[in-house]
């Protein structure tokens, strides 16, 4: 029962007053970041990396994870009150949440999303506690070839599942990998693509890329929206912040199902919070006896997706913590944070730093309780944030990004880089190219190339090493199917439609 001891010891780590404080700080900032439409968890975490430099890694990571799962709570508030997802994954909540609010049930919508988030978030953490270690023991058998195949799978899944076009997802992935090749090559010591800029010898900083792509790009988009004058009127909180008996009865099923759907989707690479909330929404609509109510303020349409996107965060931490390979944009940023603290997430972490690992996982139980309190009785305070005019908010986000970017090296070059990546992210959005694949491959690119070359060194430059073990063959097949599946899916639908019409 070694593991059980570690899990219990984890509580002794996360219950230390200092770590409780950082858990609170994390989920508090997470709620704010979730509520504010201009800035998401990825940018929030990236901005904190330079500022928290030198902090105890356990506390810093507890805080950053708090931002990650806390933002999902906050995102629903904005979705319900102003029909804008405060955080990308709460987009499904805008459909029925805003309608509920217009009907005077804003209180109930906020309550069900907070309670649903809490129940499903806790389901997710329990599942994370149970599944992390078995998966990590499997990963201990991985050699460089298997790791390469695993990263390949994560990237192909992300590139073909985020966004509408697999080709554009692939473009984003390869762009990230190319940026990752800038700098001194670790094995030969040769500078690559540095364009004679000495700062580039260390590579393009991961923080500046994320801050640019997520924060600055969002500011440009937001300012454009202000110029065009698009925004939905804000609905004030109405009704008690609680549910009627009937609403309870209708919500509990969607919350459980959403929790399970969200966790499973979260573990899989590529899918992420938005897809899990869409899956939950369609499931509930299909199961409902009154599907026509969906889109007109059905509480199931708030409870299910909100539950799903919260369980998803815990699910997404499974591959990051136990395999060391994130399956999406936000977890890639978290991985970047781990690496900044000199900690390599993955199977070895369970042996080397069980205190940090289980302290972190256990802190999520406590964080979820704190979030329930912050988002239910105290939600009225947070809602005031929505009264900040976006014409003030967006410029401030740039100013905050400047501190975050400049603090890393004290180099003005990093400022130009956040602007460059900001413009890139803005143009990506205009061209329907997803950003998450770029961030993932930027984080993994260096490790991926190293494991590729290590594998080839072991085999004496024989590529057959990648099909020598069952694990790598399986992963390669999974990568292949994740590329082929989205291309075949529309054809299958057409074919099925044709067959039905023919019958």
């Amino acid at each position, binding site marked *: 029962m070694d593991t059980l001891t570690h899990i219990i010891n984890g509580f002794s780590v996360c219950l230390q007053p200092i770590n409780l404080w950082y858990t609170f700080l994390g989920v508090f900032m997470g709620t704010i970041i979730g509520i504010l439409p201009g800035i998401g968890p990825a940018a929030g975490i990236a901005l904190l990396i330079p*500022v928290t430099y030198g902090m105890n890694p356990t506390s810093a990571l507890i805080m950053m994870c708090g931002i990650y799962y806390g933002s999902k709570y906050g995102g629903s508030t904005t979705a319900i009150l102003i029909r804008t997802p405060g955080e990308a994954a709460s987009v499904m909540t805008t459909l029925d949440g805003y309608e509920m609010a217009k009907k005077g049930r804003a209180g109930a919508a906020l309550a069900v999303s907070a309670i649903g988030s809490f129940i499903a978030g806790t389901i997710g953490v329990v599942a994370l506690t149970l599944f992390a270690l078995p998966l990590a023991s499997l990963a201990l058998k991985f050699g460089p070839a298997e790791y390469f195949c695993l990263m390949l799978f994560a990237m192909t899944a992300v590139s073909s599942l985020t966004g509408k076009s697999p*080709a554009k997802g692939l473009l984003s992935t*390869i762009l990230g990998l190319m940026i990752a090749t800038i700098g001194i090559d670790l*094995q030969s010591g040769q500078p690559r693509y540095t364009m004679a800029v000495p700062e580039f010898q260390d590579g393009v900083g991961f923080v500046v890329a994320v801050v640019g792509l997520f924060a600055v790009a969002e500011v440009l988009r937001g300012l454009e929206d*202000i*110029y065009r004058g698009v925004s939905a009127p804000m609905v004030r909180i109405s009704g008690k912040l609680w549910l009627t008996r009937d609403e309870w009865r209708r919500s509990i099923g969607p919350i459980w199902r959403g929790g399970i759907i969200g966790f499973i989707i979260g573990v899989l690479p590529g899918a992420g919070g938005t897809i899990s909330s869409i899956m939950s929404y369609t499931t509930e609509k299909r199961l409902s006896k009154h599907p026509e109510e969906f889109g007109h303020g059905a509480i199931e349409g708030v409870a299910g997706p909100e539950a799903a996107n919260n369980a998803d965060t815990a699910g997404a931490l499974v591959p990051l913590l136990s395999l060391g390979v994130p399956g999406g944009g936000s977890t890639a940023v978290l991985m970047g944070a781990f690496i900044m603290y000199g900690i390599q997430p993955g199977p070895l972490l369970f042996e080397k730093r069980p205190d940090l690992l289980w302290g972190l996982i256990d802190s999520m139980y406590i964080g979820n309780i704190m979030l329930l309190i912050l988002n239910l009785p105290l939600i009225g305070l947070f809602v005031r944030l929505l009264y900040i005019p976006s014409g003030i908010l967006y410029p401030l986000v740039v100013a905050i990004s400047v501190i975050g970017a*400049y603090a890393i090296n004290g180099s003005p070059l990093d400022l130009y880089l956040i602007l460059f990546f900001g413009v890139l992210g803005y143009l990506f959005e205009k061209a329907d*190219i997803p950003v998450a694949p770029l961030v993932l491959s930027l984080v993994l690119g260096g490790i991926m190339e190293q494991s*590729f070359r290590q594998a080839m060194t072991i085999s004496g430059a024989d590529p057959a090493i990648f099909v020598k073990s069952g694990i790598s063959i399986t992963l390669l097949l999974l990568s292949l199917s994740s590329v082929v599946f989205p291309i075949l899916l529309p054809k299958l639908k057409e074919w099925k439609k044709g067959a039905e019409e023919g019958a």
Partner: protein
Amino acid sequence: MGEVTDRIVFVFTLTLAAVYFYATAQIHTYEFGDPLGPKTFPRLLGIGLLVTAAMLFVEMWRARKAQSGKEPQNPGSDRRHFFVVGAVVIWTAVYFALFTTTGYMLGTAVYLVALMWYFNAGKPVANVATAVLYSVISYLAFTKALGVALPRGFLPF
């Protein structure tokens, strides 16, 4: 507009592949080291980019086939918002270029006031107050409390 954008993306992908192949050829290699050397992985990426370009081409071709018969999409007539975004980008670049000269506090305050004046028009007092307070408080908090070095510029404090 979608079609034009996709064409730009396609051309960009091909150009990038060409530039990347050229830049890869410029990397020095020696006889020692690992069997692959520093060029192999980038070359694979370049090939991947060519595959991407081919996929983009197929997608464009399919989209066009699906479009034919339907009315051509109305291109966005109003492009003025691109000028606004462009102006914000240039203004931000100016702020960054003068960052070490003006210092964090002064530069940020001026930068913020100008943006807020345009995007939060009609509330000069609130805008100036927010910009100045934010610049001063964040400067003091980060340099004094958190030990982050921000440029002081020509201000005496």
